[in-house]
């Protein structure tokens, strides 16, 4: 199959991107200055991420659509205000996760942002569940640009006036350069920032404009170190079809009002696990010293019993040390539990720790 390219591919090339294949797309892993520089620039200034490979699924409908979606997602969508976003999951009957996603109520229905590797399957699953009653559009004509970091609000507001009035996890349509952009105040780096949905033919000029105002392009390499420092899950690593939201320690994302009556796909399993606890739980892990424990590293207790596995591990540039996430048996999931990580045949000490590794405050009280 031919590799797919986003509408910013040429711009990546002219900015010295090193490319990798990701979910069938040719995507920049880093640019000239390297992952650590890009990571730190995002934390201190403003980084631009091409996330156009992700799915933008528009579903159009009224209250009956809300009712149907509540049968699928563990969310209180009836009480979700227009232009507000929620993090959620598409699950199977066993509460195994097909995908994690952001769903936003818009005037016409809902906009769901899906992972690139899952979007086609998600579309199939959702169209089977919803039938032909609602118009669905997995929109390939729109690019998705994220701008993240403390200077992003000032930079973006100078181009799209009014985005500074958005609260975290809300969005709205804006007019800019004779077209409609959907902007949400969100992101996946642990920084204040925005995601902008823009038509493909306007995306390159828009990003060039952001660069002119002082933001810089950032690759998937730094996106990974940023999200890991922020303690955020990456599908295919922390999350997959064999993990439930309770095991992934994401119970905060399940609306409380939905837990008493259930009625969404996977609700039985989730309600059971909420009561009895899951046997394995996602935790943060800090290796002692400088040792990096990568994905698939085995985790042991002090009597040589394997108690879990690392799902993501790298060096955290802002933490200035190694960080990881993984699953451990419930009795080892308490913060400060001593564990051992087997790297290159030797066991190295590490500690279970609280997430995130790096904390910034999102903007909540603009208006």
């Amino acid at each position, binding site marked *: 199959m031919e590799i797919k390219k986003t509408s910013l591919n040429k711009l990546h090339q002219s900015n010295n991107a090193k490319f990798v294949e990701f979910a069938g797309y040719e995507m920049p892993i880093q640019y000239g200055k*390297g992952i650590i520089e890009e990571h730190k620039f995002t934390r201190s200034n403003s980084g631009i991420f091409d996330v156009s490979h992700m799915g933008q699924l528009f579903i159009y409908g009224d209250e009956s659509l809300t009712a149907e979606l509540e049968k699928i997602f563990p969310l209180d969508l009836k009480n979700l205000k227009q232009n507000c976003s929620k993090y959620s999951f598409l699950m199977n009957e066993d509460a195994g996760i097909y995908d994690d996603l952001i769903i936003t109520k818009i005037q016409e229905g809902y906009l769901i942002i899906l992972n690139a590797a899952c979007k086609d399957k998600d579309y199939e699953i959702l169209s089977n569940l919803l039938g032909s009653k609602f118009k669905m559009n997995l929109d390939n004509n729109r690019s998705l640009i994220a701008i993240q970091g403390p200077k992003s609000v000032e930079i973006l507001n100078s181009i799209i006036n009014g985005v500074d009035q958005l609260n975290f996890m809300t969005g709205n349509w804006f007019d800019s350069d004779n077209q409609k952009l959907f902007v949400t105040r969100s992101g996946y780096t642990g920084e204040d920032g925005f995601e902008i949905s823009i038509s493909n033919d306007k995306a390159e000029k828009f990003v060039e404009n952001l660069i002119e105002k002082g933001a810089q392009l950032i690759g998937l390499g730094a996106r990974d170190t940023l999200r890991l420092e922020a303690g955020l899950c990456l599908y295919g690593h922390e999350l997959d079809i064999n993990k439930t939201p309770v095991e992934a320690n994401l119970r905060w994302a399940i609306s409380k009002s939905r837990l008493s009556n259930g009625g969404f796909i996977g609700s039985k399993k989730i309600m059971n696990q909420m009561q009895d606890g899951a046997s394995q739980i996602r935790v943060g892990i800090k290796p002692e010293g400088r040792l990096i424990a990568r994905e698939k590293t085995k985790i042991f207790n002090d009597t040589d019993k394997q108690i879990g596995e690392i799902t993501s591990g790298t060096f955290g540039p802002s933490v200035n040390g190694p960080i990881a996430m993984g699953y451990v048996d419930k009795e080892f999931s308490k913060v400060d539990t001593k564990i051992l990580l087997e790297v290159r045949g030797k066991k190295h000490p590490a500690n279970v720790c609280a997430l995130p590794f790096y904390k910034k405050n999102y903007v909540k009280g603009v208006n």
Partner: protein
Amino acid sequence: MSEVKFSKEHEWITLEGDVATIGITKHATEMLGDIVFAELPEKGSNVEKDGTAGVVESTKAASDVYTPVSGEVVDTNQSIVDDPAKINEDPEGGAWFFKLKVKDTSELDTLMNKEEYDKFAKETSS
């Protein structure tokens, strides 16, 4: 000090008497990206030509460091373990990895000179 020689695994080596100093090349560091971890062989241990003698890790991945000749490890550079970023800054100078008492100096004869290595690096990275 002898001429700098290079291995296909992207190590450099210089010889003074029968003691060799070994590190990884600038080209290797450019391929690896930001180096954030280094592991060195133990002082007093014996390493075999083309065998593993250390590890470097970038933000992206781990890579083995090989020794281009056999010998006994007589010194290691702790400063790169404490501050791995030094390897990106000065790979072919201050950021050497380890020193060996070389068993058989003729093992260096099979290695590449600078010109040969530059050509090799260019061909293999494109």
